[in-house]
């Protein structure tokens, strides 16, 4: 007999605490779609995606109904398009984004990731073509997500790519000015990019992965917050232990879903990514977990320590629950997608400097942060460089997803809608980084990359 308390506990997590499977992301390798003819290459891409992902949405819905747990998103991640399209030798890769969009529409997924280039050390001509196509590609599509890996601990930081990305982010926002620069919300710059990440906008399928692989992202900030409410005032050992136990339970459920989905889709089971991924809904906030630990507002002194504990305890609970924990696993801190962060940014408790410090200990980086529309491209590049440096030295994934909101300034808000939420625009430094970014070249890999 199953314990009645365990059954009600699980159902309470789902009903009252927003426990959900955040995404089933099907990775589809496009390496076998390469062709010297661009149109033929795109046709193959479309065919492969719609064939492999045909059942994705219906399988997701069936698991959702069988287990009684919401599966919020069904998504697709593909091989970085700069690799797939390299043989076409074409300058304009926007049609490839349009093909991905069409495949996403046909399969019914809400996002498709992989309009990407990996350039930590240098560019191929296709990488340059892809980066040049990003702003137009993101303006011409709704569901396509783009990422560029500009650095890694092993390779150092490609500062030419960092310079290009500042301009690319600005242009992506400018071309979608009517929607508060939403183009930039679908674009990430990575250091130490992860090849099996199921979360958008940074998902792509790495070349070391199988032909078709299911990666599942589980969430549940609300569950952790509620668990911590039960141990209010207790010491940090208790806090850590409580988070670990909760993370364990959530991850077990994620693994079950990943196994069911991979079996039904006839795909490899990849990883479970246990990431506390907030949504703008009340009761689904990472910021509020940190405040539950005793901070008046997220962003005040103590926030970095609280987040470090949270991120670490989540991972520890996760690895005990599944042998296949991967992706980014930890705690996300996307400002516009987290009601606690939104409130803290609105009242000035959460600043860009504090967010940068937090990214040294969170699972990714500066995420969904709205900055003034007149922020210079060089400043955005410099923010990317700082963030990449944190990842570079600490051997962790860091990323930047900034939105310079066209025509808006500090004190105003950007509205992206849906899961992307809304963000108060926060100030950047008014001092220039132009000459720093103009140097270009390469920041060498750090000493700690020489491990062999």
């Amino acid at each position, binding site marked *: 007999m199953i314990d009645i308390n365990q059954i009600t506990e699980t*159902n309470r997590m789902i009903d009252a605490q927003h426990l959900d499977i955040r995404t089933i992301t099907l990775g589809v390798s496009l390496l076998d779609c390469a062709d010297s003819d661009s149109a033929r290459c795109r046709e193959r891409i479309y065919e492969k995606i719609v064939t492999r992902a045909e059942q994705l949405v219906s399988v997701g819905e069936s698991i959702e109904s069988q*287990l009684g747990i919401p599966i919020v998103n069904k998504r697709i991640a593909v091989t970085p398009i700069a690799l797939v399209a390299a043989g076409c030798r074409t300058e304009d890769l926007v049609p490839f984004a349009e093909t991905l969009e069409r495949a996403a529409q046909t399969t019914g997924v809400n996002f498709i990731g992989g309009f990407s280039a990996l350039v930590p050390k240098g560019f191929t001509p296709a990488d340059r073509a892809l980066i040049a196509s990003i702003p137009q590609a993101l303006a011409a599509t709704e569901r396509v997500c783009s990422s560029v890996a500009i650095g890694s601990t092993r390779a150092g930081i490609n500062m030419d790519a960092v310079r290009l990305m500042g301009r690319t982010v600005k242009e992506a926002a400018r071309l979608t000015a009517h929607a508060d620069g939403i183009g930039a919300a679908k674009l990430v710059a990575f250091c130490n990019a992860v090849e099996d990440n199921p979360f958008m906008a940074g998902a792509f399928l790495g070349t070391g992965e199988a032909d078709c692989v299911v990666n599942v992202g589980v969430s549940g900030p609300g569950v952790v917050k509620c668990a911590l409410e039960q141990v209010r005032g207790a010491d940090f050992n208790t806090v850590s232990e409580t988070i670990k136990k909760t993370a364990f339970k959530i991850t077990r459920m994620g*693994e079950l879903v990943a196994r069911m989905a991979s079996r039904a889709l006839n795909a490899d089971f990849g990883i479970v990514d246990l990431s506390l991924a907030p949504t703008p809904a009340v009761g689904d906030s990472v910021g509020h977990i940190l405040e539950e630990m005793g901070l008046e507002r997220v962003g005040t002194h103590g926030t970095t320590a609280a987040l470090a504990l949270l991120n670490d305890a989540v991972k520890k609970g996760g690895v005990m629950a599944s042998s296949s924990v991967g992706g980014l696993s930890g705690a996300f801190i996307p400002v516009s997608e987290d009601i606690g962060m939104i409130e803290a940014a609105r009242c000035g408790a959460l600043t860009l400097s504090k967010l940068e410090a937090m990214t040294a200990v969170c699972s990714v980086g500066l995420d969904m942060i709205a900055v003034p529309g007149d922020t210079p491209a060089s400043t955005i590049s410099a923010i990317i460089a700082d963030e990449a440096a944190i990842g570079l030295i600490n051997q962790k994934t860091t990323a930047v997803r900034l939105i310079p909101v066209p025509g808006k300034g500090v004190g105003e808000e950007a509205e992206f809608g849906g899961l992307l939420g809304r963000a108060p625009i926060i100030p950047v430094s008014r001092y220039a980084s132009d000459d720093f970014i103009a140097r270009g070249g390469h920041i060498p890999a750090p000493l700690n990359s020489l491990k062999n």
Partner: protein
Amino acid sequence: MRAVLTVIGHDKVGIIYRVSELLASCNVNIADITQTILQDYFTMIMIVETDACNCSFKELQEKLDALGTTLEMSIRLQHEDIFNSMHRI
């Protein structure tokens, strides 16, 4: 397969009768049943076997949903694996 049926709401006459009547009409066997009052709410949990069910799992869920609406209670049917995976090693 074995599934867990959870009925939660205000106590009233005929809950077990109506639920088991529906399950019998669908040829679903009740393997175990338990009930309690949790935080003032009547909570009943049944373990049911759906292998011989004469309709699909989804249709069974829809019928239970409709009954839940009539009884003004929450009725939910879930594969037992979700509880096993979360609470058992």
